């Protein structure tokens, strides 16, 4: 069923082309609804502690296959994805115009994304999990850049792509390490082997890498920066991807791997700490924003941090006795708030989209007093915001209470230094909640209350069409329903998910004895909520006075500034680096090559202790050999010191003839013959080429002396001499030439051993030498003859 959306996506462009009269979204709508109904069928199974599993082989030899594993956690996410997916598709039908927009692209990307998300939450194999993970990155990239003619869209798409793919790759590293340590790619088997993994060398590294993946995807500090820029996407995309589903993939990952990693204190500290930091940071900066969707983006960041910190706290339950401690709450609270957040944030984004659609702006400074004209949107926004702020009688209140309970419990946890630092957690959580309260009010009242600003709006605001309101209204109703019947949601969805998350602690969903109720006595958390409401209200009413303080923060010191300067510095630095060594001068590259040859060869020679000279194996010197060598050296010196080209050519001829003479001395008549002919032809060719060259000024005077070149040249010469000496002194295997001597006449019927080797024993080499010569000949011919039109005259005409 995972592949159902992406397979259906094949038909989307066809439907878009053929049936122009009907909005393509109506056909697409069928898919998530079908899936949603299909997945509700599993609720009974997971409630009884069971699971459903099906698999599709992909690369069995590498232990990689698509295993769809549905337990409580997967089912919860699957229902969120398909349920909110259906509502978003419904909303997008009215949001996107069927004549102006490229709907085929939109729905194909969206369905791709849906498959990818379902794949993430249901995969049991970590490699396919990674596959789907990257597919969400790609489809999210495509969706953010949907209006690709805008600069902002492309910038946001690129930024989110870079950050999430960075995290994804880190995560792949962690997965591979896990796969090696656990000797399996199956998550269930990893969880079963969790106790064996702990002591292993790379356990912490794998933990950090997997967390990096989760943090980048779930927009945790400091990787949250892509999320506000991703708000350039169409609003249905923001509502779906960047509030309800994709950003929760990281949370899913953390929840899924809690049984594997929870035994480590690093995991608890990182997840809880980063989560709380993100919670505070996102809430703090949400108040600064003026764009509706930016407020929601920062609020999403903050709420994701909240859930993340709860997931971290829930991992503590692995260390303490589940019966006595409060930490079993944390897992329940995390999952419960995850549902709440998906529901109310989806509705808020849809409202922001409606406001944008009906007034033409999302800038909160231009909006106000829309309550009268848009009553339904206002109601939805109000319910969503109050739930976000954590007020009764909305779903958010319950999860906020549970959250405060968990942070208070953290304070008393006396393991891993929590007893000294733990007090920070409830304080940070409380301050963050105050800011959450402020921006929730800011969002809803600055938009809908106050005076109408007629002059700043280009169109007359009016209530959205009914179709557009259906989805947000359904979500708003759900927000209220969750408050009144929290235990139904808890029993059907949350408890099985908690069992999956804390697999070692419970064996059946009904053992999770968390009872949520709106009223549970005068507890400290209720007092804290009252404090939040009190301080929040005061700060909200005086907001005009202190909000400009945010402008004191310079743009460069923000994390976005850091990202921008990092990108710039990276580009410039790499540019400078490549310009530094890619000089475009051939001489420089040759120096690189020669120096590396010298360094590598000499280092190998002496590190491996391979240098050895065995004087006994040398043949005795003779007089004419020495004389020829002197000749050769003289000619070479002449080439190097030659003042004109012609002298150098003549001297080169001298070198060639001396070498031929060497061949004579060492009794190789065939080589001597060939060498003489080739040398003569080469000299003639040099003369042919040289008279066409322009007179080089530098060459006419002197070659000049460069110490660097001299050192390199001397280095290469000495290295090669040393290598030749060592190679000659250590002959390991006897030569095979005796065989040729013995069989040259009896086997091949020839007297000239060199020629017989060339054409008989080793005829293949000769064949390809012939080929080389043919290619060279054809190449020369075509270079001289072929003058492409339009290239202008070649050099020879000068």
């Amino acid at each position: 069923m995972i592949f159902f959306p992406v397979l259906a996506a094949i038909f989307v462009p066809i439907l878009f082309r053929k049936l122009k009269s009907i909005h393509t979204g109506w056909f697409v709508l069928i898919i998530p609804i079908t899936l949603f109904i299909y997945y509700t069928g599993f609720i009974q199974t997971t409630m009884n502690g069971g699971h459903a599993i099906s698999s599709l082989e992909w690369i069995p030899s590498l232990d990689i296959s698509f295993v769809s594993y549905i337990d409580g956690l997967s089912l919860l996410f699957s229902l969120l994805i398909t349920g909110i997916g259906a509502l978003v598709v419904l909303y997008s039908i009215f949001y996107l115009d069927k004549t102006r927009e490229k709907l085929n692209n939109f729905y194909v990307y969206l369905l791709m994304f849906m498959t990818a998300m379902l794949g993430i939450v249901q995969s049991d194999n970590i490699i396919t999990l990674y596959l789907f993970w990257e597919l969400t990155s790609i489809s999210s990239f495509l969706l953010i850049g949907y209006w690709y003619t805008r600069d902002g869209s492309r910038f946001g798409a690129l930024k989110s792509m870079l950050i999430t793919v960075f995290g994804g790759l880190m995560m792949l590293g962690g997965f591979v390490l896990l796969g090696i340590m656990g000797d399996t790619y199956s998550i269930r088997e990893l969880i079963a082997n969790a106790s064996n993994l702990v002591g292993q060398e790379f356990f912490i590294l794998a933990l950090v890498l997997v967390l990096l993946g989760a943090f980048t995807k779930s927009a945790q500090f400091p990787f949250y920066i892509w999320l506000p820029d991703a708000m350039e996407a169409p609003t249905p995309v923001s509502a779906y991807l960047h509030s309800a589903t994709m950003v929760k993939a990281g949370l899913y990952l953390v929840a899924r791997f809690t049984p594997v990693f929870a035994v480590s204190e690093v995991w608890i500290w990182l997840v809880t700490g980063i989560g709380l930091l993100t919670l505070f940071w996102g809430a703090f900066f949400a108040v600064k924003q003026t764009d509706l969707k930016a407020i929601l983006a920062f609020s999403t960041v903050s709420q994701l941090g909240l859930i993340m910190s709860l997931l971290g706290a829930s991992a503590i339950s692995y260390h303490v006795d589940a019966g006595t401690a409060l930490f079993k709450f944390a897992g329940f609270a995390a999952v419960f708030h995850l549902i709440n957040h998906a529901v109310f944030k989806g509705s808020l984004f849809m409202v922001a989209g409606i406001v944008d659609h009906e007034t033409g702006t999302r800038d909160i400074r231009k909006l106000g007093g829309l309550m009268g004209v848009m009553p339904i949107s206002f109601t939805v926004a109000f319910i969503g915001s109050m739930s976000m702020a954590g007020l009764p009688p909305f779903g958010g209140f319950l999860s906020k209470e549970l959250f405060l309970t968990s942070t208070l419990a953290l304070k008393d946890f006396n393991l891993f230094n929590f007893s000294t630092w733990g007090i920070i957690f409830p304080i940070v959580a409380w301050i963050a909640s105050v800011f959450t309260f402020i921006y929730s009010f800011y969002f809803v009242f600055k938009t809908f209350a106050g005076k109408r600003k007629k002059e700043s709006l280009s169109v007359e605001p009016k209530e959205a069409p009914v179709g557009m309101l259906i989805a947000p209204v359904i979500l708003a109703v759900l927000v209220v329903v969750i408050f009144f019947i929290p235990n139904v949601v808890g029993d059907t969805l949350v408890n099985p998910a908690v069992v999956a998350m804390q697999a070692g602690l419970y064996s059946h969903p009904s053992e999770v004895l968390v009872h949520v109720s709106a009223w549970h006595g005068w507890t400290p958390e209720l007092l804290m909520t009252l404090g939040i409401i009190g301080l929040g209200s005061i700060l909200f009413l005086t907001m005009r006075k202190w909000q400009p303080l945010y402008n004191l923060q310079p743009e460069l010191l923000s994390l976005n500034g850091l990202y921008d300067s990092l990108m710039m510095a990276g580009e410039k630095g790499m540019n400078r680096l490549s310009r530094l060594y890619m000089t475009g001068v051939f001489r420089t590259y040759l120096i690189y090559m020669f120096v590396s040859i010298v360094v590598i060869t000499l280092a190998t020679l002496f590190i491996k202790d391979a240098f050895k000279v065995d004087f006994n194996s040398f043949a005795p010197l003779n007089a004419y050999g020495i004389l020829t060598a002197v000749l050769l050296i003289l000619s070479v010196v002449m080439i190097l010191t030659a003042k004109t080209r012609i002298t150098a050519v003549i001297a080169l001829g001298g070198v060639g003839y001396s070498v031929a003479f060497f061949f004579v001395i060492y009794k190789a008549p065939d080589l001597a013959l060939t060498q003489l002919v080739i040398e003569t032809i080469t000299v003639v060719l040099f003369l042919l080429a040289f008279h066409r060259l322009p007179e080089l000024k530098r060459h006419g005077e002197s070659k000049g002396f460069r110490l660097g070149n001299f050192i390199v040249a001397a280095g290469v010469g000495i290295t090669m001499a040393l290598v030749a000496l060592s190679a000659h002194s250590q002959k390991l295997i006897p030569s095979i030439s005796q065989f040729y001597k013995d069989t040259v006449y009896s086997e091949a019927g020839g007297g000239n051993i060199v020629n017989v080797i060339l054409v008989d024993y080793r005829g293949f080499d000769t064949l390809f030498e012939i080929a080389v010569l043919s290619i060279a000949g054809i190449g020369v011919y075509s270079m001289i003859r072929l003058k492409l039109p339009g290239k202008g005259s070649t050099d020879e005409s000068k």
Partner: protein
Amino acid sequence: MMTFIWIGLMLVVLSILGLLLRIFWGPSIPDRVIALDAFGVTLISAIALLSVLFGTGFFMEVILLIAVMSFIGTVAFSKFIEKGEIIERDRNS
């Protein structure tokens, strides 16, 4: 007998060295070309003497070839000095 050949070889080598000096310092290009031509001739005699020393007849071809090559080389150089070109033809035809 061998002593004579050795002495001859020494003399040939000395003349080769003298020719090399001429090639090296030769004030004009023709000086050098002439020296190179003579270099070829001395090379022929050196190889002939060596063949006698080695007692082999395999280097006769080499001697013939050097003679031919030395001639061709000298002619090519001469023509180059004379006309600035070795093979004359119109490249653009």
